[in-house]
C-alpha cells in the first residue's frame, strides 16, 4: 500500500514539474510564431472579402495532438468529483488550438489570405475507460493566392 502511495505522489510531483515546464516552453514558442505569422489574414468568413483577382485556391489543413501530465489528470478527476469547470484542461486545449492554427498558417505561408477556418477537436482516449489523455485538434481552411 505504501509503495503504491509513494509511486503515486512521485508521479504527481514529476507530472507537475515537467508539465509546467513543457507548457511554459510551448507557450513561448506559440507566442513567438504568432508574432511572425501575424500578417497573414486568417478569417472564418465563408468567402473572401475581395472575390476578384484570385489566382489559386488551396485547401490547407493542420492538426496537432497534445497531452496532459499526470498532475493535471489527477486534478481533473478531483474536479470531476465535485463538479465545476476543469481548469487544468483549459491550457491543454488552448495550446492545441493555437498550435493547430499556427501549423495551418505555416502550411499556407505564401498565401494572401486564408478564409473559412474550421476547427475540430477529438479526444484520444488511452486504455483506461474515460480518461482523456490526449486531444487532437484539426484546423482546415481555404488558402487564397492572388
Amino acid at each position, binding site marked *: 500500500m505504501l509503495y503504491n502511495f509513494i509511486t503515486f505522489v512521485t508521479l504527481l510531483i514529476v507530472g507537475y514539474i515537467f508539465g509546467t515546464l513543457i507548457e511554459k516552453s510551448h507557450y513561448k514558442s506559440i507566442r513567438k510564431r504568432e508574432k511572425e505569422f501575424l500578417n497573414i489574414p486568417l478569417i472564418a468568413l465563408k468567402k473572401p472579402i475581395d472575390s476578384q483577382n484570385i489566382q489559386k485556391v488551396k485547401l490547407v489543413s493542420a492538426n496537432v495532438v497534445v497531452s496532459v501530465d499526470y*498532475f*493535471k489528470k489527477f486534478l481533473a478527476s478531483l474536479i470531476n*468529483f*465535485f463538479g465545476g469547470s476543469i*481548469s*487544468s484542461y483549459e491550457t491543454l486545449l488552448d495550446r492545441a488550438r493555437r498550435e493547430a492554427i499556427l501549423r495551418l498558417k505555416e502550411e499556407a505561408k505564401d498565401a494572401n489570405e486564408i478564409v473559412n477556418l474550421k476547427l475540430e477537436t477529438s479526444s484520444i482516449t488511452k486504455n*483506461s475507460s474515460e480518461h482523456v489523455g490526449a486531444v487532437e485538434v484539426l484546423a482546415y481552411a481555404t488558402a487564397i493566392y492572388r
Partner: protein
Amino acid sequence: MKYNPKLPDDSVNISKKNHLFEGIKLLVSFIVIAIIFFSLLKFTLYYVIDHLPYKYEIAFNQIFFDKKMIKNVKTDPYLDKVTDKIQKCAKLPYKITTYVIDQKEPNAFAVPGGKIYITRGILKMVKNENELVSILGHEMGHFKHKDHLKSLGVKALYYMISLVLKDSYGEILNPTLNLSQIKYSQSEELKADSFGIDMMQCTIKSVNSATTLFERMDKKFKSSEINYFFATHPSFKDRLKKMREYIQKKAYNVNRPVIALEKKF
C-alpha cells in the same frame, strides 16, 4: 472592411487559477468528506453488529466451527475445565474451546468459531489460576463483543469503498481478509480487559492478581527483542492503568487468596 492583425488574448480562455492550490484545496476537502462518510458508515456498522440477534452470530461462527484454523494444537483437560467455568459466566451462544500452541513466544488470541489459542510460552508465565482466568476471560471478551465481526465488517467496508473509488482500475485494493491476522483497535482490547476482570469476579469471586501477569510481561518485554506479542496487542501501560481504574470503580474483591494452578505447564 479591413483586416486588423491582432495577437490572441491569453487571458480569455485560461482561468488564472493556481493549479497547485486548487489541487490541495480539493484534495483536502475530498479527504475530509471521505473520513466523515467512512466514520458514519463505521458507526452504523458497529451499531448493527452490537444489536445483531444471536442467530446471525451463531451462523457466522458456524462456518468456522469445524475448520481447523491452526494445525498441531492440543487441548488440555485443565484448561477445558477453566474455560467451561468461565463460559457459564460469559453466557455466549456457542461453545468455546481452548487449544494450546507449542510455541515459546507468549501469545493468546481468539479466532472465529469459538476457538481460543494460547501458547505454551504464556502458560509457563502464569503463576496461579486467577491469572489464567484473566487471560481466558479477556479472549472471551472478544467473542462477547463480536470483535471479529466488527473487524471483518470494517475490512469489507474498506473493500467496497476502494471498489467505488478505483472504478475499473486493474489493481483493486486487496484487503487481507486473513483471519489469523488479528489486530483490534485500542478500545476493543481495553473492553476485553474489563470483561476479563468481570469474568474473574464472576467465576472465582476475586480479582486478586488481575494485573500481575501483565505487569510481569511488561517488565520482561521492556528490554527484550520479542515484539511478537506487540504485533497483536497494544502497549501495557494504558491497559494496566485502565484495568486498575476499572477494579476500583467496580469495587471488586481483591483480598481473597489466589487459587493455585492444578498443574504445571
